């Protein structure tokens, strides 16, 4: 493997690791908190919201937005580290 290829595959590995972590959170807030564990979380009330219901109709969406912006930041840093920015 050439130097260039090594660099590319190291970059790709880090990228995939970020994806794995971010998608785990993505799954946890929507399918986890909003669906699978909804009933248990509904026992907890914050203001007028049952927590499971809140995740399903509000919270998961806020987290989705944050996830993409975190991803943008992480990837911009990664691009700089490997010299792929332009």
């Amino acid at each position: 493997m050439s130097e260039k290829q090594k660099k590319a595959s190291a970059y790709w590995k880090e990228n995939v690791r970020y994806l794995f972590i971010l998608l785990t959170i993505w799954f946890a807030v929507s399918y986890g908190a909003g669906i699978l564990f909804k009933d248990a979380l509904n026992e907890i009330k914050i203001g007028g919201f049952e927590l499971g219901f809140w995740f399903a109709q509000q919270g998961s969406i806020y987290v989705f937005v944050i996830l993409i912006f975190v991803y943008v930041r992480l990837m911009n840093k990664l691009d700089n580290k490997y010299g792929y920015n332009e």
Partner: protein
Amino acid sequence: MTVQAWTYLLVGITFAIYIGIAIWSRAASTKEFYVAGGGVSPLANGMATAADWMSAASFISMAGIIAFAGYDGSVYLMGWTGGYVLLALLLAPYLRKFGKFTVPDFIGDRYYSKTARIVAVICALIVSFTYVAGQMRGVGVVFSRFLEVDIDTGVIIGMVIVLFYAVLGGMKGITYTQVAQYCVLIFAFMVPAIFISIQMTGNPIPQLGMGSQLNDGSGVYLLDKLNGLSTELGFAEYTDGKKSMTDVFMITLALMVGTAGLPHVIVRFFTVKRVKDARKSAGLALLLIAILYTTAPAVAVFARTNMINTVSDQEYASMPDWFKNWETTGLLTFNDKNGDGKIQYVADTAKNELIVDRDIMVLANPEIADLPAWVIALVAAGGLAAALSTAAGLLLVISSSVSHDLIKKVFIPNISDKGELWAARGAATVAVIIAGYFGINPPGFVAAVVALAFGLAAASFFPAIVLGIFYKKMNKEGAIAGMVVGISLMLFYMLKFKFGIFDGGKEAVAGLEKDWWFGISPEGFGSVAMLINFIVSIVIMQFTPPPPEEVQEIVEDIRIPSGAGEASDH
């Protein structure tokens, strides 16, 4: 001024703006027609994507559906936003790096096969046509209710407007009109929501008002109040719902994956300059979409509570004007079964006397809450902006699939740029006429099929694209087999359980519910078909030759963000 005068004024002004933008930004080359020249800023692209994505269904129907479904409506909220996470992380940056014009371009090149390209074109056309017919219908409904022209005339006016700026401006015209349309539609959605939130809870932020105490000094939380009202009338608790957990899970997944696989959304990311712009504009798009999507459930709670309070057990004779207005459209019907002159609105269908079409909730909401005339007119202009922006985006996919993927890439490879541009305009014109025809003569199944379009996109495109990027060894045999099996299975399930064609037609559908595989509804089955697509692709790949060296090099290249250059057709 009356509501109608305000509506003419606001709709007139917004239409003039759209047309002005279209003239200013008309396309001169195929590159401008397909990808707006490739120099759109991330913010403009984010706004355009948001307007493109939020259709008549998001603006007009979604809050109404949630108002009647309660917790079960969450599938749309999570499904139609969570898909953007998949899009931003798994697809958009790589497809931008790949740098072509359309989704079938990617499938055709990555899987080095004309067959794969043609399968992708067919999938894109099925998905886009079902979708666009629903948009034209939405335009017709808004026109007929607020401008009091009949639905057919409304559809034709909508067709002319879309034709004008889609055909003239292509992607460039569409992008900049969509930016304007986003501003109109979000303003139109938020203003009444904020008004009503203040009215009911005293909190100006609807997202918080939804979880606040009522304004009447009782100290009761709005959601508790609504749960109480719902159970009293025999409905399921609002925050609980009645769909099975498996089904909620599967529908959410199908909508998310389908969102990420929709060609009219994906192509928007071909219009920005660099890979990092594609990532950023996906984030901005979701942020702008989330403003509406987190407000919609609040609107649903307000509208539902207001409606029950206004009608339940009240004298029919004392109903306000909006009630009578909507009765004349046939979207709201009252049948005094027990002859007591009062409206019984209950879950038991034998005793229920009021039928409310869910599509009217957002449009009627400002009237129910007694807001000023200009707010009501604003909602009409917003509904039109939402429907027109999505229709235009879909028409572009249809026309580029025909002129670029079929005419240029398959039939006449040496067509000149100018010739292709005219072919694209011709295809867009034909597509508008077909869409308009379906808007005027809607096949009874349009609404049902729109929801299923996501299942079809999930079952066909998503696995092929993801494997194409993340699995270098995936070959054409695997991908084609996966797409064909996935979309066929989804079509079969949809025809069997949604249209009952193997069991004697529509009447049989209700009785087939107990036969659903694993208790999964047709809307959620896209998830299963998608998984099967993945499995078939990977299994077939094991027994067929690997992709050629140069294709594997393409895959390595799209994984690296630098050197994206501009989108081009060679």
